[in-house]
């Protein structure tokens, strides 16, 4: 029972990341009709927003301490972060400690801007091209972005730890402990997903976007500049992926390749959920996350070795055979 509950939590946690990335992917597909293979790179850039802010907050001035030596035997250089000298050692240390939550605020405008530039600068030129062309250009873009990040930050993972107050484990039941930050990540994703749905459901802007997703031409005939709104939706999708990346940093240290690790799985999530279906992406994200988690249990892999590596694709095949449009796919999309 303990193991069962822990794997459910693990599944929800993995599913949170899948759902957030898949939500942005399907949002872009549903509005602009673009299959964006650079979406994983946006997740990765979000995580590196956190790395960047951490480095920024750790910018230091140097003083030489003659009583200590460095590895070459020269007088040691002591680094003191500027924030600690500006706000005092305790406050400065607290600001650095909370760099990941702070990076959420920092990442939103940056990710929207990156999404906007990506869409206006490159992807809009491929709207009328075939999906294969869109996949090629966005995949190429993803490789360029990850190589840029690697050139700047190196290939090794860089730790972006959670604040001390949100580290450690929570005891959920007898024998069931779970990392606090992973619980925070799950609730964070629920809030973000809820906010995106509320934005689309309860605002005029969202209503127009939904109308545009259903019938782009008719909305255009009503004199609404739907393209402009769809561009903003690209920015929103980039921000959602970026936020997912920022908050994921304390779970697994950011590295330049993390976007690619999630990309393929997120596409499977989108296809299983139904191309262009927002609730489908979220439901499929959590479903596949939980299934993957259970498939990794020793009791399962002992019976079917290797099932943990193929479970998601196996389920995708079965669902697509039974429901070719995915769980909640709309008629006419990708048909």
């Amino acid at each position, binding site marked *: 029972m*303990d*193991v069962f509950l*822990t*794997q459910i939590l*693990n599944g929800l*946690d*993995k599913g949170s990341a899948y759902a957030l990335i898949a939500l942005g992917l399907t949002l872009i597909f549903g509005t602009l009709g673009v299959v964006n293979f650079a979406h994983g790179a946006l997740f990765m850039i979000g995580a590196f927003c956190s790395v960047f802010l951490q480095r920024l907050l750790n910018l230091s001035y140097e003083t030489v301490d003659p009583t*200590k030596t*460095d*590895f*070459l035997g020269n007088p*040691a250089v002591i680094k003191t972060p500027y924030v600690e000298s500006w706000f005092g050692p305790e406050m400065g240390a607290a600001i650095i400690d909370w760099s990941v939550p702070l990076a959420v605020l920092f990442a939103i405008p940056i990710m929207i801007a990156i999404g906007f530039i990506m869409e206006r600068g490159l992807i809009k030129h491929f709207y009328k091209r075939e999906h294969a062309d869109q996949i090629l250009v966005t995949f190429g873009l993803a490789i360029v972005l990850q190589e840029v990040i*690697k050139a700047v930050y*190196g*290939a*090794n*993972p*860089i*730790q972006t*730890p959670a604040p001390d107050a949100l*580290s*450690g*484990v929570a005891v959920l039941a007898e*024998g069931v*402990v*779970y*990392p606090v*930050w*992973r619980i925070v990540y799950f609730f964070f994703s629920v809030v973000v997903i809820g906010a995106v749905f509320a934005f689309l459901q309860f605002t005029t802007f969202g209503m127009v976007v939904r109308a545009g997703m259903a019938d782009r031409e008719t909305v255009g005939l009503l004199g609404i500049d739907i393209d402009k709104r769809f561009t903003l939706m690209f920015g929103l999708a980039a921000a959602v992926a970026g936020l997912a990346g920022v908050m994921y940093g304390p*779970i*697994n*240290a950011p*590295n330049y*390749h*993390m976007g690619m*690790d999630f990309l393929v799985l997120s596409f499977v999530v989108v296809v299983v959920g139904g191309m262009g279906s927002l609730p489908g992406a979220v439901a499929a994200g959590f479903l596949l996350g939980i299934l*993957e*988690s259970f498939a*990794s*249990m*020793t009791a399962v*892999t002992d019976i079917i070795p290797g099932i*943990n*590596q193929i479970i998601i694709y196996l389920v995708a095949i079965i669902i697509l055979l039974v429901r070719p449009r995915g769980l909640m796919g709309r008629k006419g999309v990708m048909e």
Partner: protein
Amino acid sequence: MSKTNLTRRGVLKSGAVAGAGVALPTIFTASSAAAYTNEPTGASVTLGFNVPQTGPYADEGADELRAYELAVEHLNGGGDGGMLNTFSSKELKGDGILGKKVEFVTGDTQTKSDAARASAKSMIEKDGAVMITGGSSSGVAIAVQGLCQEAGVIFMAGLTHSNDTTGKDKKANGFRHFFNGYMSGAALAPVLKGLYGDDRKAYHLTADYTWGWTQQESIAAATEALGWETVNNVLTPLASTDFSSYIAPVLNSGADVLVLNHYGGNMVNSLTNAVQFGLREAQANGKNFEIVVPLFSRLMARGAGENIKGILGSTNWHWSLQDEGSKAFVKSFGTKYGFPPSQAAHTTYCQTLLYADACQRAGTFNPCGVAEALEGFEFDGLGNGKTLYRAEDHQCFKDVLVVKGKENPTSEFDLLEVVEVTPAAQVTYDPEHPMFAGGQLGSCNPGA
């Protein structure tokens, strides 16, 4: 109608000229025929440095490349000479190798066997490299070692820790300075017993490829010999990033030690996940729960950040060692690049010097001569104490360091502390040991 004037003198003259013309190439090739692949004929000799310049081990590859460049500089008489000054063999004089200036070409292994073989092949066939060295993965090392054997060049392995490299996949043209999984197990076991006792239950998470398998086999055998019980061994896909599904069941498994047979990004993520799940603070079977990482690397430890504190492991070399060789290398490397070298940099630097020295002693670049010079070669002054390049399997036998993640680091480089220097005799095994059985060294191949 044409008329031909043939004279006896003319026929003899023409025949002599034609005969000389036909014989000429044979005359030259008879004296200059390559006795072995890429025999250097000019004033320089080319070495091939095959390291991961892209991919997940690119940082380690970059450090290897720095060490190679430093070694070449020292071989050619530049810089402060580094470990040439402390090396027990005094054959190298800083005038290249056998009087030829050392030049190098580089290849990118991408940490993929096929890419590594392709880049090694290109360096041998197009650039004329007489020796290939490098790598940051056992799968790659074994693949490139096989290629070098076929091509007839020496392979001086870089960072490869699988028993198989000098075990079932050993080759006569291949040599490894780095230690291996068996040695890690043999060095760690007594320290584990001293610190954690002999009544422990271990749960292993193991990377599902050659290095992971041999590492797990080695550490499990060493700890079981102490009296530990191996509760479970779970193979994790190499591409795994989130290990939470594998970590979560550990606490309820009855185990009180988690052994992470992971390296690189796998190690960083699995260790981070284990610490997140509170394993370091946990209690099991009335004891403190412990985590062990058999193969440590400072570059990887940096990626794991705070999570590394107090975790035991083993390493081939560490920059804080105070022997003359290590100090000379750290000074030389640190002055040139501004930070201390990694164990990957150390082993690749040593391999370059050892190859150069072997050529010098053999008086040839012929792989068979070089191999003969390396086989059974005993040396000192390269940072690991007295070392033997064993003839039977081309594996170096030297002291192994047991290290622990430092609780209070004084700098960004000061991440590991040496807990014990395990003497070479304690990690030496029989060449026919079952973990290394199944392969034949064969005979050296000079190629050409």
